[in-house]
């Protein structure tokens, strides 16, 4: 079966939660949803691997959760609002999670936001982002 290409896949640094991604992410998102109950949050933190075994997620999804690989969780069908429930369970803020996704420290991220946020210039398409990155000597 061939999956269709969509224009929004050209957005850089973004995984749009569309119907195909929703399909793959279903067990992963069900895990996140379970963290809306205090007892479940405690059970998860007490033994993460064991807790995760009740959800039919892929090995890659499980590893991404255990290692808090936020972007991988998005790529594998996690919804950002659901990921946030894991961040909250870890006693972190939304802002912390967003900073982790960008590879910045939380303070760097806060400073960027206080300075007006990330400019859209250079971030409209994957090709534009690539051109930009080549201009930067890291």
């Amino acid at each position: 079966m061939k999956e269709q290409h969509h224009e929004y896949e050209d957005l850089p640094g973004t995984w749009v939660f569309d119907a195909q991604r929703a399909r793959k992410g279903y067990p992963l998102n069900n895990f996140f949803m379970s963290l809306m109950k205090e007892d479940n949050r405690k059970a998860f933190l007490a033994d993460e691997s064991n807790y995760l075994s009740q959800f039919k997620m892929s090995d890659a999804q499980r590893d991404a959760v255990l290692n808090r690989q936020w972007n991988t969780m998005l790529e594998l069908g996690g919804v950002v609002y659901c990921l946030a429930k894991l961040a909250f369970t870890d006693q972190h803020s939304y802002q912390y999670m967003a900073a982790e996704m960008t590879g910045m420290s939380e303070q760097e991220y806060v400073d960027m936001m206080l300075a007006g946020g990330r400019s859209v210039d250079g971030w409209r398409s994957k090709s534009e982002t690539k051109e930009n990155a080549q201009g930067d000597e890291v």
Partner: protein
Amino acid sequence: MAKITAGIGCSHTPAIGAAVDLGKTDTDYWRPMFEGFEASKKWMQETAPDVVIMVYNDHNNAFDFKMIPTFAVGCADEFPIADEGWGARPVPIVKGYPELAAHIVQSVILDEFDLTIVNEMEVDHGLTTPMSLMFGQPDAWPVRVIPIAVNVVQYPPPTGNRCYNLGKALKKAVESWDEDLNVAIFGTGGMSHQIQGPRAGLINKEFDKNFLDDLSRDPERLKDIAHLEYMREAGAEAVELVMWLVMRAALGEKVDEVYRFYHVPASSTGVGHIILKADNDE
């Protein structure tokens, strides 16, 4: 006759709720944003609507992934506050208006909008943070609320045009309710923001300003903005702005802009706020 007299556009974020609940509204970080809503709270007190129609989105709190309704109307007596992962916000329970909600559902479905009817639903920060910003911290909310939840989580949300037309149908529905009621309608979410992936933190002030300008002057342009344009120009989550179009169209053609406020940042979000008065004599 019931009338929609005013529309309120207002962003929502969990962090705004946390700042209110933890008494942080007067810190250096938050003061500039909360000051922008002082005039709005005063206006709200003077306007004293009987009912609020709250067009907002749920963030996977009331709705999980078993079912994803595109438009869902809350028809319950009351709506408890959801525990989003850190305990429920300590805000009053939200009281509904089931009789009017039932009337709206009936009217709007016959107007060819196939809404989902919800008789039990918790509400999350998408609904409660605009309430806090506009009503402060009362012991009980001074208004009854009809929540209309719009799917903006799984792509695609309804189009701007569909939202705009829903607003028109809501106006018709409210005006056919035989009770003198002052109804205000909220469009929440936005403005520019992206809270996921390496592109998180994106803000486009110019896009937001143009959107606010046209909300008053040229809403017909806004209804044709494609999802991709919102996402590309103003961040993946900026597509929430389609909900503001429901609010705008429910006010009729002409509006008076009463108040406007814009502030960056609230966490990752460009906070936009506008109050529009409906010109009901048109």
